[in-house]
């Protein structure tokens, strides 16, 4: 029985253009790299809630393209992501452009860095948006986008303390 690390991702907003997600996996680095880059693996893991994946192609070399589509859980519309690989350094680093057809104006660069220690692989997954409007698509909640970085930190502080005191 392997220890589960479910739900342990740390989500941060290091600057107003970035979303940084850090997560550990009980698996060797090469396997994690393969699962993130090989089509036959990606199609099994790419949809967040197990939605049907209708298209998945990965040409993992600098300048190569990737594209995947899954069906939205609510209305079945296509959700297509695509881009081009900028850096490919197995098994530690992948950098690619990140486009989502649902947000045609949003441009981002996705950087995945992997490192392994004692059989545990740490994934550092950074999305860097070309402009703040782009990142706010990801983090938008009514008025909150105006100051999301601070508000997010603030909320944790207040609600955690309030919860502890209750």
């Amino acid at each position, binding site marked *: 029985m*392997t220890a*589960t*690390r*479910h*739900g*342990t*991702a740390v*989500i941060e907003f290091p600057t107003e253009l970035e979303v940084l*997600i850090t*997560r550990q*996996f*009980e*698996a060797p680095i090469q*396997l*994690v790299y393969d*699962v*993130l880059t090989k089509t036959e*693996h990606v199609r*099994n*893991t*790419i*949809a*967040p*809630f*197990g939605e049907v994946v209708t298209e998945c192609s990965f040409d993992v070399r600098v300048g190569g393209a990737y594209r995947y589509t899954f069906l939205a859980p609510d209305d079945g519309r296509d959700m297509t992501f695509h881009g081009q690989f900028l850096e490919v350094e197995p098994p530690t680093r992948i950098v690619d452009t990140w486009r989502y057809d649902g947000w045609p104006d949003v441009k981002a660069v996705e950087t995945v860095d992997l490192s392994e220690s004692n059989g545990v692989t740490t994934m550092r997954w950074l999305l860097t948006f070309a402009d703040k409007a782009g990142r706010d698509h990801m*983090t938008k*909640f*009514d*008025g*909150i986008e*105006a*100051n999301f970085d*601070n*508000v*997010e930190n*603030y*909320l944790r*502080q*207040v*609600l955690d*303390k*309030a919860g502890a005191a209750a």
Partner: protein
Amino acid sequence: MARSSTTSDVFNALAEADRRAILSLLIVGEKPVGQIVMDLSMSQPQVSKHLRVLSQVGLVKSRPDGRHRLYRLEPQPLQPMRDWLAKFEQAINSRLDRLDDYLQELQGQGDSQ
């Protein structure tokens, strides 16, 4: 009506750094205006103005205490924001959980071969 959003919306109320500082101060307990003025080195009118905004959106409540008025934090209006944040986290974690399960599955297959 540019100002109305500031005073009626909890998100806008929180977007101001000084108001967050006041709320952070109130986490530890209720305080009179004078104490907030001293702790944050802000002017009394400034603090009073911010407390008024925070009271209007329900993040701060006050009660009289002798000659003073004590202000305290009411975290309840923050809950919708936390709920939203939790959903964002859930979507990301759900995908990574699937990745985790899949990695375990692949390794399990490797062991049994």
